[in-house]
């Protein structure tokens, strides 16, 4: 178990990085507490896997330091760091039984036989693998195999950090569900620092206490799931998190009021905004847009049924506004108006939130 500190970490795959674009990972400073659950979230190519590999020691950073507790591990090998990692595609040792697979990391570290047996059985029980310990691992289904790779990471008592690199990619949705909550449950039970890398916001948000949202090698926001949902600091975060993502609409500020398409919106705070001639947008999540007796006149263009709610696409002039309507609530046919919840609507200047 360890606290993880990233100090001015930067990485480039080029020997001599010139421009900003050469950095696969731009400067990052973070501190993760011991026993926390964290997620790195972003689209492919955002640098999240690079960051993961830097932490696990499969890559060495170009600049900066990495600390486990107070120990500098920047130059340490993966073995020396005592980390465990679960990969996108299940990695199992085909020729071994499930038991031997789980025992493998302990045997490599010459743990006493009785202790190995105790740990393996304990972990196997947690993962519901206990009834198939003597089976050949290669005969298992994808989720079974992924559980084994997971178990191999958890079986060691000396692990500093457990890392997951998109571990649910090859798992069927209904099993994804089971495995996801299993991970969450395991985190409660064994209380280790866990880092989870994914492009799937649901996985990141449900798993982690704190999520790092990344784009093009840079950190866009670090926050709790609630923070990311309710106050995305950048329009990208607003768009990337949430399904559908946040509505981002052009706006202007006149006399301290936010004006959207010629309509002044009441109750919106614009904080420390100073007009610098930059692009202004307002952001509001579909969850916080509602049909109302008055407000912004819209025309309903499309309704998609998502089961527990419907995703409604409404149009005001050329602007498309999405909103969620819970199951059972009516959708007005003609002459509809929508309104934005004022304290859930943010103003963005060049993409960044105005506070």
């Amino acid at each position, binding site marked *: 178990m360890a606290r993880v500190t990233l100090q001015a970490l930067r990485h480039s795959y080029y020997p001599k990085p010139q421009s900003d674009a050469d950095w696969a990972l731009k400067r990052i400073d973070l501190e993760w507490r011991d026993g926390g659950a964290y997620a790195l979230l972003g689209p*492919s190519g955002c640098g999240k896997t690079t960051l993961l590999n830097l932490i696990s020691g499969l890559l060495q950073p170009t600049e900066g330091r990495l600390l486990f507790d107070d120990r500098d591990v920047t130059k340490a090998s993966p073995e020396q760091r005592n980390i465990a990692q679960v990969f996108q595609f299940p990695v199992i040792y085909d020729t071994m039984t499930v038991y031997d697979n789980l025992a493998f990391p302990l045997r490599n570290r010459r743990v006493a036989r009785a202790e190995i047996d105790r740990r393996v059985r304990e972990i196997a029980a947690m993962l519901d693998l206990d009834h198939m310990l003597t089976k050949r691992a290669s005969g298992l289904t994808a989720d079974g195999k992924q559980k084994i790779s997971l178990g191999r990471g958890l079986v060691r008592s000396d692990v500093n950090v457990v890392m997951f690199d998109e571990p649910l990619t090859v798992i069927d949705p209904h099993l994804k569900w089971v495995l996801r*909550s299993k991970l969450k*449950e395991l985190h409660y039970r064994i209380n280790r620092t866990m880092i989870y890398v994914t492009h799937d916001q649901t996985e990141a948000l*449900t798993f982690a206490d704190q999520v790092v949202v990344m784009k093009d090698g840079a950190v866009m926001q670090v926050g709790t799931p609630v923070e990311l949902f309710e106050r995305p600091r950048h329009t990208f975060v607003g768009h990337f998190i*949430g399904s559908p993502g946040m509505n981002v609409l052009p706006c202007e500020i006149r006399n301290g009021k936010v004006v959207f398409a010629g309509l002044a919106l009441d109750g919106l705070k614009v904080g420390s905004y100073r007009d610098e001639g930059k692009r202004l947008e307002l952001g509001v999540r579909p*969850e916080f847009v509602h049909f109302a007796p008055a407000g912004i006149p819209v025309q309903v263009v499309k309704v*998609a049924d998502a*089961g*527990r709610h419907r995703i409604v696409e409404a149009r005001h002039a050329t602007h498309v506004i999405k909103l969620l309507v819970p199951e059972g609530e009516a959708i007005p046919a003609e002459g509809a108006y929508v309104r934005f919840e004022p304290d859930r609507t943010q103003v963005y200047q060049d993409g960044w939130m105005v506070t």
Partner: protein
Amino acid sequence: MTLELRQVSKRVGADVHIHETSLMLEPGSFNILLGTTLAGKTTLMKLMAGLDRPSTGSIWFDGQNVTGVSVQKRNLSMVYQQFINYPNLSVYENIASPLRVAGVARREIDARVQEVAELLRLTPMLKRRPSELSGGQQQRTALARALAKESSLILLDEPLANLDYKLREELRDELPKLFADRNCIVAYATTEASEALLFGGNTATLHEGRVTQFGPTSTIYRRPNTLTSARVFSDPPINVARIRKAGDEIVVGERVRWPVGRAARHLADGDYSIGIRPHHITPHRGNEGSATIEGRVLVAELSGSESVVHFDMDGQTWVSQSQGIHPFEVGSLTRLQVDVERGFIFSADGDLMAGGD
């Protein structure tokens, strides 16, 4: 121009991959094949395409028996989960390839390629090779090729499965629009219930090689005729419990009693199963007379906008999904409210007896 499967089945050796199935797909329809891996979606598609020959039964297209006709002779396109393009051809040539094979005139080819490229936002990439494109663009290229061919049958086998979450969302939005003005039959295989719901159209739920139900998507979601269909078409998994109906009450397990729902009132007293979707179990707001359930919290997944809670009651795990963030302490007892009116009541054999819109 309908596609009809008449009592089609597929056996390989002693294994039955598809049990006897009859399906009718109408022109201009978007049909979703929903089921888990190995439920038979791909096999069914292969049969539709003519890549596989059914063991029994026949396949009719536009009133003609096409059972033995090879795939080359049939006007259809297929898009797979893997991004399959010709790696040595440009995007333009990739899209044009089926037209060249069909011997379409050069000018006509150009017009059609430009048109679908515009539709799929590939115009700036037409000169590039597939390897220089992102995953989303590669899959768009494969889709463009299928569209350019103007096939009467388009089969899409989990085309979005290998894409990033957000890209998936984008393409999911675009896909139905692409087929909107065409008179072709689209069949779309997916493992995700939420995807099926958003596409609308028709859905066939598949389970262990059987089509359990086929019809308009929202009908199947809101009125699954069997427990199996309900399970297939539910994400997160539907809560199922054994119940006993006694007069105006239903008894769950030993001690929990709920008022019987309006729809179930006519049912004879006896043993049934109830299916309740997770979003119909929500935090208790203290309203009198509502059905409640109490359990110990096992896992709480709070995603920022919604709370998913797994709790244990008398040894069975239940799942609740609710909008907003609700504080749930793991290990504590919690009381939740159940929307019994929206529950499905199934007979012992799993047939829908009451409930559903």
